[in-house]
């Protein structure tokens, strides 16, 4: 019963989760900082918005790492970090994108 052998699938899944935690977590933190800076900037001053967003983004990173290793599957680890990151990044880059479309038209 006590075999210390670990199958390859298990190792791959752990590696996948690790990358999801590190890279996906950073993507989430960076896109959250960007989106929140943009969202808060009208209400606060720009520097206040950036600092508030950046401080919260570190906590989001820690949360993303926790999720990456708690998710039921390795795919879940990726989905839980990258999907919200993409949504936030889309929100953050939308104004630029719209501006470029507007100027081209």
């Amino acid at each position, binding site marked *: *019963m*006590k*075999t*210390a*052998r*670990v*199958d390859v*699938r*298990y190792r*791959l*899944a*752990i590696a*996948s*989760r690790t990358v999801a935690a590190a890279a996906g977590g950073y993507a989430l*933190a*960076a*896109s959250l*900082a*960007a*989106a*929140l*800076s*943009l969202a808060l*900037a009208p209400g*606060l*001053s*720009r*520097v*206040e*918005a*950036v*600092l*508030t*967003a*950046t*401080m919260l*983004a*570190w906590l989001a*990173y*820690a949360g993303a*790492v*926790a999720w990456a*290793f*708690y998710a*039921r*599957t*390795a795919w879940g680890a990726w989905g839980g970090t990258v999907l919200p990151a993409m949504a936030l990044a889309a929100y*953050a*880059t939308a104004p*630029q994108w719209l501006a470029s479309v507007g100027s081209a038209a």
Partner: protein
Amino acid sequence: MTAHAPRCPHDAEGTASAQAAVPMERESFRQAMAWVHTWAGLVLGWLLFSIFLTGTLSFFRSEFTRWMHPEWHGLPSTALLANGHQAADKALAALHRQAPGVTQWTLRLPDARDPTVTVLWRDKAHGGLETLHVNPQTGEAIPARETMGGDFFYRFHFELRTAAKGRWALEGRWVVGAAALMVLVALLSGIVTHRRFFKDFFTFRPGKGGQRAWLDAHNVSGVLVLPFYLMITFSGLMIFHTLYLPSGIATAYRGDKGVDTNAYLADLQGEKPERRARRGPSEPIDPLAPIALQPILQAATTRWEGGRIGGVQARRDAQGRVVVEVSRHAGDRLQYRPPRLLWDGTTGQWLEQADPASPAVTTYGVLHGLHMARFADIGLRWTLFGFGLLGSLMIATGLVLWSVKRSAKSHLQASRQGAEANIGKAPFGERLVAALNIATLAGLPLACGVYLASNRLIPLHAEGRADVELAWFFGAWGLALLWALASAMVRPSRMGWSVPLGAAALVWTLLPLINALTTHTHLGITLPAREWAWASMDLAFLATGVLLGWVSWRLLPGRAPRGQAAAAKLARTAPAAASPAAPCVSISTPGT
């Protein structure tokens, strides 16, 4: 099949096999975090320890710098200095004699921790900042040995500095940032992992030996000053947020001409963007003319109602106008940076005070100030130093715990299989961890001691002297690594820990003696004269040596029958490990 994280921290394999027997069930969040805590802690643990320990030493950065410049001995303390403001004029005169074409200069006035006037300057020939230490009484540059002093610990702490003039500084900062992020993850997952958070405050059972004692030591050092670790990690990440996480700036400060980082930094420091120094090394900058400082310093003192002046800077702004900036002493308040008063350097007209006060900027400033600890007086400084040592201890015990737990496991497994022959040989990974533990936990204290000794032993006018000192530091560390690899991997030896720790103890203990043989700032002179700024360093080195010697002696083969022996030498005999109650007592769940 899903990749469930193992049930018990420090125990990947065991649980993977258990998964086969136990029906698939979703493990608890706490178990998953225990696993994260173990591996996040292990992977960068050695780097973390090095960053934490050098950062802890950096609380006494000025004191190390002074000790490593024995030529500064005899400079008057600030209390005896007739007028600090006059010293600024004298230092400026010395600078203009040495570098006529200077385009930017900063003076740091003498204070209780640094008795010199420090002049940082650049001119056309020197794109980077040059440093000059001036005697505040005579106004002469102090002829002193070339050394990085305490700045080396400081620079290594946040950018893994390997050379006196910056090298790989940016790369080093990224590595340190990744490590800091790892600590944040390890701390937060460590909190989740702890079921008996408050009980662990009061639990330390060294008598139980082995793994139990290491776990208790890890918990006590981890829980006791947890707020400090969270603060220091989070503030460390925030100090370099413009490097690590610039995406917020990139969206909020995007203009027609791209991202205006200069405007962000100006807002962050409460300055007007146009007053900031001209960037771009290729742009020609006119040299600065002599500036009448006394009226400015007088006015600054009046405006701050007697508050201390920390430094003065003169620079040309983006339009080429001369700006004089007087900074309040950083010890006058918690928030960093201190307030600054700006004058027009040509007309002498007061411009404004730069001191941001909005909530998020103030929060950031307080975090920055807490991390740098420039505000701390001597008592608080020692307290923070103690917290830093506890943090280093937390990382060290965590690393050793990983080893002890693993060796206990192998031992148990081997004995169950009845394969007695296997007991002596631990798996490759475990031996590597053991080697790196020795190289870092024992090697770094040795290297730091050797660095301090090199300051006294290298000939005063050696070529590239500051770098030679660093070569001694990294050379000693490299030797410790070689020894560790030899004694933990090639030919397992029970002396693995005791030898480098003993060497470190020897070096630190000998430091006061080496100092006595090479300088006039030794205990025989400084103690009778009650020059505590100097004497306390030698005494602290002696105490460090005694402490390291005690640890080395405790870890001698045969000295410590339980526990420590298992850490000192992997998997040969680990009696505590035989106790089945030991693994995962506080962190396992029923049904494992």
